[in-house]
């Protein structure tokens, strides 16, 4: 096991280490691992990456001011639009599509002199929890190549876990950045809804999703969120707040109030539970106050989340009619042409979600499904806001260890069940952080922390404290 954090690389570069040398180091990791892991859908041409490194070196030598991420290599989930590389969202529907504009988050990365190394694999349109449902290929977990890295941002997480990027952008609609973080010993932070611009994110569940920083340590996640966060005129749901600036002081365990919500703690398999309680008890022994709480409505979070996500997916994906995007039909009859383009372009899970979404929104079913789910969502949101006023919620990140490739594909409900602890933060719009807490049988296990709206600082401070206890900041495979 190795350890490498992006902020350390940044300091070395500022102290005069050559950027091209750093680029070469990361490319060597890609060369070593990518053939088996398949984290990337597209990779930037190495020569262009070196040129970018040389350009930064020249500027550094001249003493010119460089950006906050100068020389760091960032991988970007392939549902985030970039002009330099294609954006497929892991779907045949967008195979070969090159966006005419960069997402706001990508513009912000480039403005801070980050180098985009490539676009990472995902479950098609971010609909999945394992990254097996990409239309191109499944991504494997670098810690155990027979297992999944979680999803849907599994490509981003795997690229970090093998050292093929310094930082990564994922997206999180129901746990898509946090579940992969838990399965790959990396860190994923789902920001407060509206803190990070969604302009240029290929939409799946608008009311739930956020572009999310991913990295190998809490400090690195904070660094990335400082760059991508803050109001954007191009996203009507973006909150009118400035770019966040975080303190990197770890929290004091003494006086820290942690709530253990039964519905988000119970039900995980034994090795996962064991590591969870180790950390919680350690914090308690150092002076943190623990409180056990029950919120019965959270037992309905998973069906509530899926009902809303299906409905929003059906609406969002209606735009793929074979006109503006690559997948086309051949029939001269309009209805058949559209049906054919969509049948060819979408994979089975996407079709399933569209059909379920249409069902949940149809006359006669809408009140029982979609509208009912929005009612339950209000209750969940209110309970979470109420609780996070007095404590940080500690929760499991996943009920299971990373499953084997193919193990859960035969039953959609088994796949959905993997998100049971992560969907709550999306329904409530609040920030949530997952970080590694240990390994069981060589497989990573993570813990989840949830705070109130715009309380990312609390998560970062607590995350830094937990890292000081576990010693797992920066870990990656050899």
């Amino acid at each position, binding site marked *: 096991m190795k350890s490498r954090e992006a902020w350390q690389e940044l300091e070395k570069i500022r102290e005069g280490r050559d950027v091209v040398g750093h680029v070469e180091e990361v490319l060597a990791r890609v060369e070593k691992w990518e053939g088996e892991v398949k984290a990337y859908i597209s990779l930037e041409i190495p020569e262009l990456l070196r040129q970018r490194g040389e350009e930064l070196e020249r500027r550094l030598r001249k003493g010119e001011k460089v950006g906050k991420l100068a020389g760091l290599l960032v991988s970007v989930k392939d549902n985030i639009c970039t002009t330099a590389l294609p954006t497929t969202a892991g779907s045949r529907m967008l195979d070969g599509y090159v966006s005419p504009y960069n997402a706001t988050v990508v513009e912000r990365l480039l403005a801070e002199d980050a180098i985009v190394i490539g676009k990472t694999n995902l479950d098609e349109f971010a609909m999945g929890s394992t990254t097996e449902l990409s239309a191109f290929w499944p991504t494997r977990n670098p810690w155990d190549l027979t297992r999944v890295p979680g999803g849907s941002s599994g490509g981003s997480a795997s690229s970090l876990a093998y050292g093929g990027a310094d930082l990564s952008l994922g997206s999180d609609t129901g746990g898509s950045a946090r579940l992969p973080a838990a399965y790959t010993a990396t860190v994923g932070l789902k920001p407060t809804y509206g803190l990070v611009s969604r302009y240029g994110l290929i939409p799946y569940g608008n009311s739930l999703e956020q572009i999310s920083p991913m990295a190998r340590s809490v400090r690195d996640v904070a660094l990335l969120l400082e760059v991508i966060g803050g109001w954007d005129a191009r*996203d009507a749901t973006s909150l009118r707040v400035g770019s966040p600036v975080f303190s990197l002081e770890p929290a004091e365990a003494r006086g820290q109030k942690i709530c253990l919500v039964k519905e988000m703690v119970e039900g995980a398999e034994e090795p996962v539970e064991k590591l969870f309680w180790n950390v919680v008890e350690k914090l308690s022994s150092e002076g943190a106050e623990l409180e056990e709480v029950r919120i019965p409505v959270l037992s309905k979070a998973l069906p509530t989340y899926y009902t809303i996500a299906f409905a929003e997916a059906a609406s969002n994906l209606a735009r793929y009619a074979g006109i503006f995007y690559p997948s086309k039909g051949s029939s001269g009859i309009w209805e058949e042409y559209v*049906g054919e383009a969509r049948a060819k372009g979408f994979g089975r899970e996407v079709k399933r979600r569209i059909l379920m979404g249409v069902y949940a929104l149809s006359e006669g079913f809408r009140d029982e*499904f979609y509208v009912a789910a*929005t*009612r339950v969502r209000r209750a969940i949101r209110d309970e979470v806001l109420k609780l996070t006023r007095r404590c940080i919620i500690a929760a499991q990140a996943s009920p299971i260890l990373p499953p084997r490739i193919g193990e859960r594909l035969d039953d959609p409900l088994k796949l959905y069940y993997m998100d049971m602890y992560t969907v709550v933060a999306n329904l409530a719009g609040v920030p949530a952080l997952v970080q590694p807490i240990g390994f069981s049988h060589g497989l990573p296990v993570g813990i989840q922390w949830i705070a109130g709206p715009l309380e990312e600082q609390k998560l970062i401070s607590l995350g830094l404290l937990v890292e000081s206890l576990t010693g797992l900041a920066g870990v990656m495979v050899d």
Partner: protein
Amino acid sequence: MECKDKEVMEKLVEIAKISLNEEERKTLCDELSRIAEYLKAVGEAARELGTEPLYYVWDLGGPLRDGGESHRVDVRELPTKVKDGHIAVPWRGGRVEE
């Protein structure tokens, strides 16, 4: 597991505009029946809770469940500027003064 309602399935396929072959149609129909059965829990829960729908997570229109004061979203607080009663939508050519 049996496909419970073929007629509904046909209607969904028509609305969703996705051509499916026979095998896909049957498998998806079975799966959708199971998923719908699972999602039914939200209908019952909503009836018990009696809460108002929430479409946008920061819509604080209804009182929070702890009886805290109610909040309203004011269009003047929205990030998009309003000019002459119209919202300027930047990606449709509307101008936004930063």
